[in-house]
């Protein structure tokens, strides 16, 4: 009995600062890469007949938003490019090489938002600077708010999806996969836990 009481007192003492922090910065979220509830998937045409899909396994980031003031939202994501995974060891090795991502020289890619346009209806466009293969260029992501609310484990979550595409040549990627495969499509799932 006594043990339970001590445990209850101790855990509430430990949790208290978290509740305080919650109210202090209500709109900041860390992307739940720890629980793998976020995905950066890519899709490239294979010869024009089909697609190769893959993802980056290792990334981190945070965002900040308030659903009623979407145009003030912001997001930052850092990607470790050597975590590229297309489910094929030889292809992944080739993707990490200087023919593609040159991960030894440019181990990090990043996206830093610069502005957000609210399109209404839960849709918005995130403009930002995308750094990839050592090249930084503006990139716009079409995003949709999926939902937000309490999770069953005492946290608060919010989730979005996004899509964008860019030409590999624009980011200095050397390998030529042919005209049908010049572009990469990115599909993002971003779930954040309120800090």
């Amino acid at each position, binding site marked *: 009995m006594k043990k339970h009481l001590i445990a209850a007192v101790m855990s509430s003492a430990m949790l208290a600062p978290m509740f305080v922090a919650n109210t202090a910065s209500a709109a900041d979220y860390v992307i739940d890469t720890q629980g793998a509830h976020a995905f950066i998937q890519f899709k490239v045409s294979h010869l024009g007949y089909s697609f190769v899909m893959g993802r980056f396994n290792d990334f981190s980031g945070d965002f900040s938003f308030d659903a009623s003031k979407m145009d003030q939202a912001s997001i930052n994501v850092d990607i470790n490019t*050597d975590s590229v995974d297309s*489910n*094929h*060891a*030889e292809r*992944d*090795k080739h993707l*990490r090489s200087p023919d593609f991502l040159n991960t030894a020289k440019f181990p990090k890619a990043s996206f830093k938002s610069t502005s957000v346009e609210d399109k209404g209806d839960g849709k918005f466009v995130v403009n930002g600077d995308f750094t990839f293969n050592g090249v930084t260029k503006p990139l716009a992501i079409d995003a949709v708010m999926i939902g937000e609310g309490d999770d069953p484990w005492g946290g608060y979550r919010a989730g979005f999806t996004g899509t964008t595409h860019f030409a590999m040549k624009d980011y200095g990627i050397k*390998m*030529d*996969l*042919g005209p049908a495969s010049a572009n990469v499509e990115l599909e993002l799932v971003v779930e954040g836990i309120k800090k």
Partner: protein
Amino acid sequence: MLNNSSTEYGLITIFIHWISALAVLSLFALGFWMVDLTYYSSWYKTAPDIHKSVGILLLFLTTIRLLWRFWATMPAPMPTHQQWEHQSARWAHRIIYVLMLAIMVSGILISTADGRGIWVFDWFQFPAVGELFDDQADIAGAFHQYAAYSLIGLVFIHAAGALKHHFIDKDSTLTRMLRVKR
């Protein structure tokens, strides 16, 4: 005829030696060339398939060769050669075997890091070893490349030695690996 004697190589040793030599030189040339092919080259897929298939067959042959080497009589070093020549030839041969094995094993580690086996032509599939350590494909790949360069360097010295004995010393070092005495 088939077996070695204490002074001469037999047909089995000679055959394995030259098949291996041909395979190593071809694998090196093919490997060196194939990694720079463009995506739309008709060899882009075929060349690595052949490289891997021939490489695995060479691994089998080399395993048999090493067993054969321990089991069979090997001819003594040429009596006309100096002691240092015996020693350096012996070490060169040992290092060639070690490099060949290391190259072939690292090649397998590149291709099978994702758990996929390797098809040897369309005959059978060599089983995957899977990912034994982090960054396996990259580390094995870099090792494979530099070990292959080292092997070719050593093969060059090995061949230069044989040619020197043949054309300058005019002894039977090379000919005893070329023809079988009865």
